[in-house]
Each structure stands twice: as C-alpha cells, then as structure tokens.
C-alpha cells in the first residue's frame, strides 16, 4: 500500500468505528439532554445488546464465522437480529429508568449518577456469572466481500463496513427525524429546554423520559451488535472501553447536542484508527482523553454545546 492508500484505509476504518461510537454516544446525549444525568449503565446496555444479538444469531443456527448467508436471507436475518436486539435493549433501558432512576429524580448531587454506576456493575456481573469470563467467538454470517480503491493493493472497503454506514445513517436519520418532527420528539426537545414549562403544556414528562431511555438504549443495542460483528468477539467486559470512548465523543460534541454526538463519534473513531496507524494502538486512549481535555479547556461546553447562562 502506498502511504496515501494507508491513510485512506484508516479513514475508512475510522468512519466505521466512528459510526458505531456515534450510535452509542447518542444514547448518552439524549438522556443527558433531558435529565442532565451521565448514564453509566449505558456502557453495559451496549454489552448486553451484543449478547442478546449473539443469542438471536445462534437461534438462526449461525455459529462462528463459517456459516455465511447471502442475498435476502442475509438481509432478513440481520434485520431480525437488529430489531430484536434494539427492542430488547430499549426495554432494558426503560426498566433501569423506571426502577433505579425514577425514585431518584429531583435528588440533588451525584446520587443518580452513582446509581447508574451500580446498575452498570450489576449488568456486567450478571453476564459474567451467567456467560462466564471468556471472550466469545462471535457468530458472523456476513460474507467477506470487499471493494478495492485503486487496485488490489489499495484501500479496502468491506461489505460489512458499507452495511455499518447504511445502518447507522438510517438509524441516526430516523432519530433526527423523530426528534425534529414527531410530536413526542418535540416534547422531548421542549422538556430538555425547559422541563417545567413543558410539564405545564401537558407533556407527560415520565413518558418523554422513558422514550429517551428506550431510544438511547435501542441505539446502544445496535452499536453492540455492530461492535461484535466488527471485532468478531464479545465479552462481559466490552462495555467499559467502548462506552468510555463513546461518552468522550458525546462530551466532545457538546453533551446534550444530538448532531454534536454524531460528529463527536466520527471524530473519536477517526482518532482511534489514525492514532493506531501512525502512533501506537496502546496510546490511543491517552490521545483521545488528551484531546478531550484540550477541547474542554478551550470550549468548556464542547464543540457544539452551549452553556446554560448561570442564574443568581
């Protein structure tokens, strides 16, 4: 590969990773936008999503990477797996909100955030206890077709990467449409901007919050599936590092800001793959966090965020 091809290759990989991080970051940002809560349980809803999807793939008789599907069966199976995973994760998010977080609504300080750390631990350890500590070989029915840019030695785009882009674009577009145009989506924005006023307009705030958790968690489930298909493995421990990077993406873009989370996710994905190529994989997290700190020092509200004016 020429240096240019190498760069192109890393940009392609970075975009794929970034799309995954963006999906995960959206869940942080939606919940934060409404509740001003950093939801650490999101990390492991993502992980649980990966396991749920694995279970569904097993139901279809897909084990390891040797059973490949093509054409309509491939699309059908992936669609079913995606939808089932997203719905299951969505409900998981709603359950977490209803039983662990709603009782704490209105309590000042870091209490709710600490609770989400607890929930996160419970999720990862339940999976640890029931599924074991070993990394699991992930069932992957997607054939290894690829396209080459600039000949067989050039940069490679796999079918799967294209699938990632299509799926995440559709999901993000759908989310954006929902929040901008639908009645409930507008209620979500109104609640985020002024919860009291929204309440007095007759917005059922509980429903809005549950919707936010459902959608955020469903996207995390989709991200979990993509992550495991990308790396061909899953484990009870995948939530932390991926979640942390996605969260960094959300903060980078200005937490609470939906387009910000998307852009932030892409940026983090690109940094990760470029740093991995040109510096060293082992320093990727250090670079990511250093950039985060630098951005926050220069723009405390993130790249696209706005600080609420302080009242006194």
């Amino acid at each position: 590969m020429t240096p240019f091809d190498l760069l192109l290759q890393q940009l392609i990989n970075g975009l794929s990773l970034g799309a995954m991080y963006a999906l995960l970051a959206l869940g942080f940002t939606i919940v934060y936008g409404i509740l001003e809560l950093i939801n650490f349980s999101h990390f492991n809803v993502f992980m649980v999503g990966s396991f749920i999807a694995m279970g569904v793939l097993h139901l279809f008789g897909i084990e390891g990477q040797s059973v490949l599907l093509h054409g309509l069966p491939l699309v059908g199976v992936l669609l079913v797996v995606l939808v089932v995973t997203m719905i299951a994760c969505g409900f998981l998010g709603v359950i977490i909100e209803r039983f662990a977080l709603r009782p704490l609504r209105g309590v000042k300080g870091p209490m709710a955030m600490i609770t989400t750390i607890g929930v996160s631990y419970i999720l990862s350890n339940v999976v640890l206890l029931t599924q074991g500590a070993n990394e699991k070989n992930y069932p992957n029915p997607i054939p290894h077709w690829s396209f080459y840019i600039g000949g067989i030695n050039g940069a490679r785009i796999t079918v799967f990467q294209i699938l990632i882009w299509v799926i995440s674009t559709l999901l993000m577009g759908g989310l954006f449409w929902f929040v901008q145009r639908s009645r409930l989506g507008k209620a979500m924005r109104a609640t985020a901007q002024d919860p009291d006023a929204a309440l007095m307009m007759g917005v059922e705030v509980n429903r809005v919050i549950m919707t936010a958790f459902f959608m955020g968690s469903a996207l995390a489930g989709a991200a979990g599936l993509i992550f495991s298909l990308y790396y061909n493995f899953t484990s009870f421990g995948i939530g932390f590092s991926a979640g942390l990077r996605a969260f960094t993406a959300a903060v980078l873009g200005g937490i609470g800001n939906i387009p910000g989370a998307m852009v932030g996710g892409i940026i983090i994905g690109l940094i990760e793959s470029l740093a991995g190529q040109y510096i060293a994989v082992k320093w990727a997290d250090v670079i990511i966090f250093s950039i985060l700190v630098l951005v926050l020092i220069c723009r405390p509200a993130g790249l696209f965020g706005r600080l609420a004016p302080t009242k006194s």
Partner: protein
Amino acid sequence: MVNTHYGDLHVLKNVNYRLDQGEIVCLLGGNASGKTTTMKTIMGIVRPTSGSVIYEGEAIEGLATVERVKRGIAPVLEARRLFPRMTVFENLEMGAYTRKKGAEFDQDLDRVYSLFPRVKERRDQVSGTLSGGEQQMVAIGRALMARPRLICMDEPSMGLSPLYVEQTFDIIQEINRQGVSIFMVEQNAAMALLIANRAYVLQTGQVILSGSAAELRENETVREAYLGEMQGGH
C-alpha cells in the same frame, strides 16, 4: 369556579380563592408572598398538603397537570418561558400538545395569528431571538392554542416596556371578552386592578384583603402597600 384551600403549607396558609366564569381575577402581592406557588398549585405542579382545587364543579387537586390542561386550564408563565431553541410555530404547537392536530388546530392558529399578526410574521424564527414583547405574544398565543376556558398568567407585565404592557393588558381583556376566564398574578397593581373584576392581596402566604377591583383601588391598605405610597401626594 376555582376554590382553592390549602392546609398549613409552608407557603400558603389556608388560602381561599374564587373565580367565576368569565371573570378576570387578579392576585396581588410582593415577591415571595406565595403568588407563584398559587399558580403552581392550580396547574398541578405543586400539590397542596390539604384542601381542594375545584374547577367547573369538580375537585381536580389530585389530577396530573396533563389532565388539567386537557380540561381547559392553560398557563402563561412568569418571564414567558418559551422553549428558546424551538421556532415560534413549534412553541405554538407545544401549546396544543394535549390536542389532536386537525381543523381545530388550524382554527386556533388562525385566531392566534389574527390576534398577533407579528407572531405570524415570525413563525419560523427561533423563539429565543425574539424581543421581550414578541415573546410575550407567543406565550399568550401558546396558551390560547390549548383552547382554554381558564388562563393562569404569572406576571404578564414583567420586564415589558410600558407600550407592551398596555398592549398585553388590552389583549388580555380581548381574550376575556372572547369568553376565557383569567386568573392573573401581577405586581403592576394599578394596571391589573383596572382590567380585573376582583382581586386578592396576598402577603406571606395569607390573603390579607379581597374584594372587587374597584373597592381595592380605593382601599387604604392596598394603596399604602402597593399604590398609596407612590401616590402619596394625592
């Protein structure tokens, strides 16, 4: 129509209000006297520890805010409180949140646009960028979109220039003529008493005076507390 009565709440102590169909009733009082708590109690944001809120003959103090809005109670909040990053039109939509979109929605929209032609001009502008007076129009329009029978207003004159204050009060009278009852918390006592039928004076959570607006305009205590000292030479 509204008969509120709370027990020994922190803020409101055994307060009674009454508002008849088609009236404008005004609640006067200083900051921290319990005015806003009264508003919140009517809207269902704060629940009274005891006592009842009766609306159109029915006790509603146990109802959620949504239900109250559906029954025709709409708020105009203190300092407008529009959704700053939503457009004017979206803000109006939020006012009609509890209702189905359709012919009625369009009718109400027309009504708001005819009351406030300015609002129509600005319909696609983000509401945070409007001037204070324009925001007040949107806030009142937003309340009207709920097709209310009762509007609760919290300090509609606050922060507005005299011209806008007059316009606002004219509009309130106009809306009232169209059959909407108005419950209004105000500091601008003289203006409020000019358009109100009746008024209550609230101090440290207790009603210290009540009566027709005309009576209260002449009342020495009100004059001393809110008007009188200002008109000392009179």
